[in-house]
């Protein structure tokens, strides 16, 4: 079982969207995938995946002994992935308890842990249960700065692999030199990229409905990301807008 924490430091860069969409693609590839929401209090993985109305138990119930891990898993309606929702708050969940809970997840090839924003207790709780990490960032200065701090913190956990997903890339702006490229971002973070996701209005639109349509521009990028994760590769195509040659005849 591969346990991958999806983190970022900065909030709003797309951790939960990457977790949900990557999870769905891995499930579509035939892997048994479980998405775990490690954000206690500000949990929304169930909302992004559109399963919020079907949540009966959450990780708080599992840790309190009111149900098994299996009973708390909610089937994603878009794929074969299953979602383990977080609790809305209340009792403090220790890193040891969360780690035991993740290890107790039955029949899973991939466990993707949606990490809360920030670098406080919630971050350490989520990372302590993982063996690999994906750091999500955007090409903005504040996101890269926070991602750099996260990468430094992750080095203390001796994870098997730490890689970067650069989200919300604007190929047109990269081509004009107005936005840093994926290569520039990864050079600054000194961490290889496992995926590059272009800015896509469909994500924003359909996220409100709890799904990402297969005609989204970012669909191919997510397929490539899932392939890289499954095969432990780092093949990332630079996102550049190709100039159309003007014909004079």
């Amino acid at each position, binding site marked *: 079982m591969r346990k991958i924490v999806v983190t970022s430091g900065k909030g709003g860069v797309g951790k939960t969207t990457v977790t949900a969409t990557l999870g769905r693609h891995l499930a579509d590839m035939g892997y048994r995938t479980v998405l775990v929401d490690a954000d206690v209090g500000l949990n929304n993985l169930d909302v992004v995946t559109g399963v919020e109305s079907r949540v009966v138990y959450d990780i708080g119930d599992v840790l309190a002994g009111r149900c098994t891990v299996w009973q708390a898993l909610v089937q994603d309606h878009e794929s074969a992935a299953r979602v383990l929702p977080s609790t809305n708050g209340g009792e403090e969940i220790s890193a040891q308890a969360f780690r035991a809970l993740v290890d107790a997840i039955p029949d899973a090839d991939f466990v993707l842990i949606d990490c809360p924003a920030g670098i406080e207790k919630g971050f350490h709780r989520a990372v302590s249960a993982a063996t690999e990490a994906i750091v999500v960032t955007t090409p903005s*200065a504040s996101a*890269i*700065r926070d991602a*750099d*701090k996260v990468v*430094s913190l992750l080095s203390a956990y001796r994870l098997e692999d730490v890689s970067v997903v650069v989200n919300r890339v604007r190929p047109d702006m*990269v081509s004009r*030199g*107005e*936005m*840093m*490229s994926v290569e*520039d971002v990864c050079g*600054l973070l000194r961490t290889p990229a496992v995926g590059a996701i272009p800015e896509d209005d469909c994500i924003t639109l359909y996220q409100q409905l709890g799904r990402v349509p297969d005609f989204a521009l970012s669909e191919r990028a997510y397929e490539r990301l899932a392939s890289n994760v499954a095969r432990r590769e780092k093949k990332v195509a630079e996102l550049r807008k190709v100039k159309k040659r003007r014909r004079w005849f």
Partner: protein
Amino acid sequence: MVLRRADAMHDRLRKMLTKDKIGDAGFVSALKRDVGRVLKDYFDLSAEPEVTVAAGEDGGYAVTVTARAGDVRRFRTTENLSRPEM
């Protein structure tokens, strides 16, 4: 609003991330450890050296190393020579 070019942003971020790392406690402790190791090859230190890194207004850094030593170490190649006068 001025649109920043990607290379200007890259340079700005590189400086920002470097500055963040210098402010990190791990960076200073690693520097102190390495400086101490070099100094101990030359001196019998009385205590661990103190290292401070201060950012200057010109963007540079002022690195100050303070150490106290009880004696100069004798090298194998010079152990028969008289001690230098300091």
